């Protein structure tokens, strides 16, 4: 009876210690204007691109934007992809 209680206490203590490993939210400071997310595009219209928007991704789609940046990094900066 005593043992499960001790284990539960230990788990609770360990979990409370893990809280210290977390990060403070730094996404937006007090008084600072809200910044739009980058995948929302640069057009004055909602979720739309301009002539300067790189082709190959759907503006407004977070996953598509993330994939676009990864693909662009690999294609543009990893020449081992081109050579081998």
């Amino acid at each position, binding site marked *: 009876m005593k043992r499960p209680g001790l284990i539960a206490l230990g788990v609770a203590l360990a979990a409370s210690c893990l809280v210290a490993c977390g990060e403070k939210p*730094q*996404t*937006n*400071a*007090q*008084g*600072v*204007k*809200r*910044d*739009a*997310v*980058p*995948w*929302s*595009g*640069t*057009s*004055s219209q909602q979720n739309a*691109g*301009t002539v*300067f*928007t*790189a082709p*190959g*991704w759907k*503006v407004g789609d977070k996953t598509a*934007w*993330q994939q*676009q*940046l*990864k693909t*662009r*990094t*690999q294609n*543009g*900066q*990893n*020449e*081992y992809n081109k050579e081998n």
Partner: protein
Amino acid sequence: MARMKFVCDAERCIECNSCVTACKNENEVPWGVNRRRVVTLNDGVPGEKSISVACMHCSDAPCMAVCPVQCFYRTEEGVVLHDKDVCIGCGYCSYACPFGAPQFPSQGTFGVRGKMDKCTFCAGGPETNGSEAEFEKYGRNRLAEGKLPACAEMCSTKALLAGDGDVVADIFRTRVVQRGKGAEVWGWGTAYGSQQAGKPPVNGVQK
């Protein structure tokens, strides 16, 4: 997605300063401010090394910690940005930053120090994406156009890498393994878990 990161490969940087020029041009950076600079170590000595330095978009940014008006914020992608409408131009951030990233234009009347200016990872600032106000205050928002920072995309030898931290780390690791040296540097094992971390390659073989 990991955080956005810059890495400069000192084995490749040829001190051409194209990253500096690309940044100045793309963002129309004011006189007296260089958001990106090329630093040469042991200049003139055989084996000199150059690295391109700008804001490293720290995970625990000291500029953010010392700012008395809390004008800094970090985006979901890990880019450290600031609001020039909130900045009071006190200069604390420039003393706190180990990379000399925050700089102050001094073209005002009597050379008065203006609002702080720094690298934005070509992500603009807290104005409407792609707006004229955003461009005038912070420069171009290339991330919202699905592009990467101009400095890295312009780098002729691809010494300067920018993008998703996982992808950048993967590219850099491939280079080190291919060239057969580099994994002996401090911190390699922490970053990549290499068996050879902290030790020189055995018979030129990198593990």
